[in-house]
């Protein structure tokens, strides 16, 4: 199988702190990758570097075989990478419908000026219903629970028409039933639309039905990779988690 996303020897330092140290991993086409590690191990930093929020001190990111290390964020999104934020970041003065609509507007000024505001309404409604927010289109973020805000994050990512979605702690603070729902949706998206995911999560149980392979990092360093069952029994991983 071809590699969809590849990180080659990523190093990122913040002052004296080495957040990521020569980290390499890849995601194959059609694969769902779990990215786990104890608190502060650099999982979110990995996402920030893949999205281009900041550039690595050394190393390269390849997407569909192209070097994207120096591309601005919005171009990466247009190529098909989308993300959700660990702490949801909705636009506070917009309804969730308007919020998701921002992800569908034309990238050009002329396009934005001339296109009808309603063009993608049906698409947006479909996505919001898919993530379980049907009938709540005109609510504002402050009226929603944390679980629903995470759904909005997911809807925004899906609305960019991605090839691959980076999910940052999408299960945190959700009930067991909600987690099952999201799992089901992600598996459905994967099967129907061929989306790939990288999932960061503390909740290993939520990951289990979803991921094909897990990469474990600790203090920004690669520790182990392999199928879920093998990883949770790995001595090095246990040591990293339990100290």
């Amino acid at each position: 199988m071809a590699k969809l996303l590849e990180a080659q020897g990523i190093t990122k330092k913040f002052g004296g702190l080495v957040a990521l140290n020569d980290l390499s991993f890849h995601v194959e086409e059609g694969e769902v990758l779990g990215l786990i590690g104890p608190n502060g191990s650099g999982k979110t930093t990995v996402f920030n570097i893949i999205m281009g929020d900041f550039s690595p001190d050394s190393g390269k990111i390849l997407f569909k075989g192209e070097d994207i290390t120096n591309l601005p964020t919005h171009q990466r999104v247009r190529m098909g990478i989308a993300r959700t934020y660990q702490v949801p970041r909705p636009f506070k003065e917009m309804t969730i419908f308007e919020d998701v609509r921002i992800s569908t507007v034309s990238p050009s000024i002329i396009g934005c000026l001339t296109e009808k505001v309603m063009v993608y309404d049906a698409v947006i409604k479909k996505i919001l219903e898919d993530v379980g927010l049907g009938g709540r289109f005109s609510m504002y973020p402050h009226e929603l629970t944390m679980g629903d805000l995470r759904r909005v994050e997911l809807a925004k990512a899906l609305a960019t028409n991605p090839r691959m979605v980076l999910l940052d702690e999408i299960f945190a603070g959700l009930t067991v039933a909600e987690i099952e729902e999201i799992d089901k949706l992600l598996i459905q998206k994967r099967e129907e639309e061929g989306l790939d995911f990288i999932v960061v999560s503390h909740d290993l149980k939520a990951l289990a039905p979803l991921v094909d392979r897990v990469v474990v990092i600790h203090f920004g360093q690669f520790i182990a990779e392999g199928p879920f069952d093998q990883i949770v029994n790995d001595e090095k991983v246990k040591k990293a988690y339990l100290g």
Partner: protein
Amino acid sequence: MCALPLFIPIGVTRLMVMGSYLAIFAMSWDMMSGHTGYISFGHPFLIGLAAYVTAILSNQGGFQPPHLVLPMYVTIPLGVVAAAGGGMLFFLPSMRARGPYFSLVSLAFLVLLHRLVMVIRPEFTGGDRGLVNLPSVVMGAIPNYYLSLGLMFVVAIGLWYVSRSNVGSVLKAIRMDEDVVEASGISTYRFKRFAFLLSAVTAGIGGAFYTHYLASLIPRRAFGMTFNLDIIIASVIGGMGTIVGPMFGGYFLTFILEYLRPYLYGQWRLFAYALLALFIVIYRPRGFHGIVQDGVKWFRMRRGEVYG
């Protein structure tokens, strides 16, 4: 509104002209700052650029040789072009400096231009005393009323159209969280640049015509705090990010300042309106536009049309 000068006294007509220009400046400020959240304290920099370019080039009483005096239909567009260039200068720091840092840089631009007209070639810029006896586009209060109202409508309709389109939505999203907009696949760079350019062009149009209406250009006024704050306050009390709000704010401010004149002495007038602005910002941050919106909502709820 077109027949209005027939019914109102000439003084009020003049006030309407001032109101129209302040409305243009407030809407122009709103395009840049109200929409994107990059609060500019240097809008008179853009207005002043356009005003100085057209004033210097068309100044018959100036020191330049007569063959260098250009007609206004050349100098006013040149002024607008200069303002557009100034807008792009504004855009540069906006890529690095956000929030209060951008505001400070924009203020620095204003101070810079103010100092610049003092030191370079005072025979052209008029130095501290400024330029007087500039040519007028049209003479008299009533023709000026139609001219300013026409300009105001053109600017208002143009900016309102942009604000209502998806461009407006993107700009307001940039105000709320720029990084997230970028992560939605939109080049915030491109949209900010457009907003800044549009704001600068409209500021230039207003600035060029305004200085010919006043027939003078006094740096202490043009770059002074009062004028600067009038623009911002008109926009804020009208309702930032709405275009219609700042338009109303421009007229409101002009009229309230004038009609407070008999009751409040000297600086008390300015104090009173600053106080009013402060209250609106604190208790009704969405300005008059927000007050009207809430009013309509309340009225509809009372009639049972909308629930919640």
